[in-house]
């Protein structure tokens, strides 16, 4: 009877019986590396299959060319100026309105529909409308960034404020904890995560918004330059700018945001 069963071993035994090279190949770092190699290979294959997709060499050529001509820094300076103002505005306004919506049920009922409508308006609409309203210039991308991003901030902050434990709030009010401490020890730590998530949404949505507004506005910036290549049917130039867009958003999201959120959650993660 027992002979028919395969001998069972503990997971530790299984792990130690595997040779070292196998372990190295299946490690997390190796997996990531394999992914990048595979993604690059996929790009090569796609570029070979479709003639409209530019291959890596031509994209790198274009990228170097754009840097050499000095197009990159000037256009990105414009874009970051607009993006920065729009994002800062949406964070401030979003926190103010979000706290109001989270605290007062009446404000919630009142603002529910406008926020819901604002959430569902695509960035392209704001880009079209602001270009028609404000013409070419800084205003259109800034307003587009602000309007596409602010509803996400409001929703996130409101959810965070709603999530503050009712029991703890009632208890601290019955024990007469001063408002300053109540805000800094109870509300802020609970809301911080939602604010972080909100800022992340704002950055991602705002980046898309600013690029779209620049694409349709005629006043310089990264989006405008990408359109220039697209209109010229030079897809390698467009792809070079896509590499830059994506690079910027990854740097913003992974480096800055990850670090910020790790800082913000020290209190939670350190305990374990």
């Amino acid at each position, binding site marked *: 009877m027992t002979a028919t069963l395969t001998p069972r071993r503990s997971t530790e035994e299984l792990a130690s019986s595997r040779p070292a090279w196998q372990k190295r190949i299946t490690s997390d770092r190796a997996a990531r590396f394999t992914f990048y190699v595979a993604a690059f290979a996929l790009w090569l294959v796609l570029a070979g299959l479709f003639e409209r997709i530019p291959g890596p060499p031509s994209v790198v050529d274009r990228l170097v060319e754009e840097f050499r001509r000095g197009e990159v820094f000037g256009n990105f300076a414009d874009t970051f100026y607009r993006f920065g103002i729009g994002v800062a505005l949406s964070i401030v306004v979003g926190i103010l309105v979000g706290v109001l919506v989270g605290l007062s049920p009446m404000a919630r009922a009142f603002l*529910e529909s406008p926020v819901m*409508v604002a959430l569902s308006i*695509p960035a392209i609409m704001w880009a079209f409308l602001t270009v028609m309203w404000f013409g070419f210039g800084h205003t259109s991308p800034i307003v587009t960034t602000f309007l596409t991003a602010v509803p996400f901030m409001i929703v996130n902050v409101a959810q965070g404020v709603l999530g503050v434990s009712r029991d703890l709030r009632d208890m601290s009010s019955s024990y007469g904890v001063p408002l300053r401490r109540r805000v800094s020890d109870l509300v802020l730590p609970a809301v911080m995560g939602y604010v972080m998530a909100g800022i992340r949404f704002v950055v991602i949505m705002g980046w898309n918004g600013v690029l779209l507004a620049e694409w349709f506005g005629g006043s310089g910036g990264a989006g405008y330059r990408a359109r220039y290549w697209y209109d010229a049917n030079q897809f390698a130039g467009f792809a070079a700018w896509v590499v830059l867009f994506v690079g910027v958003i990854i740097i913003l999201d992974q480096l800055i945001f990850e670090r910020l959120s790790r800082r913000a959650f020290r209190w939670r993660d350190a305990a374990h």
Partner: protein
Amino acid sequence: MSNPVIEAPPTAPAVTWQEGEVLARRAAARNKRKRLALLVAGWVVLLLIWQVAAYYLPFGTLPNPLEVGAEMWEIIASGALVSDFMASVLKTFAGFGVAVLVGAPVGYLMGRHNYWKAFFHDGVTVAGTIPALTYAVLSLIIFGLSNLGPVLAVALVSTPYVAINVAEGIRGVDQQLVKMSQAFGRSQQQIRREVYLPTIVPYMFAAVRMSFAVAWKVEALTEVFGGTNGVGFQIRNEYQLFNITGVIAWMALFIVFMLIIERLVLRKLEAKVLAWRPEERVRT
């Protein structure tokens, strides 16, 4: 915040429980009416601000709500609405189909094996942050002016959502159930089909609902850049004619349609699918 103890209604205390129930029901009805009134007030103020802005802005920059309403009615009456929305919806759902076909296996692997989790992790997070503009234009470059462009864009946008959700779902599978199935000598395939698969389905559904808003916007965006029919195509046409009324009318229909699908269809369906899960009851 109101303190329920101090601000209790100054009505006479209930003598019997029947009376108490009547009082409670009345208070609930009052609250409901108040909420409804505020909801309506929200809409009214929204329209009022629009109306006032339309009045003060220079002529032709912002049409007033009535003009937009008339334009919307014209679109509906001419039948353009049905044909264009059907085209857009079909493309969106075709894109979702592709996303589920690709994303569900990826998410399954990510949920079950650490190796595949590390492998796909960067790709999935990066794919979720790439601006929609990139997806839209890339799809156009690949497929040119055809219906496949929007389908590809929707698929690209929603695949990471599906993968992440399915991976989450797989990791949330009751491990005791898996161990018990193993102890009773069930085969790997049986465990996969009877334990893992049923848990993925609601997560896939949630992913579709979560990504619907994003996907629907990307679909329209791709059509704006190079569609041959659909909502985005119509919006681009109106924009090229500098017909702001037309742009806003199509946009309003777009929003109404999106809210109807999201609020009524998808949420109801999800509630039905997830009705057996007690922890899913959301606080109001």
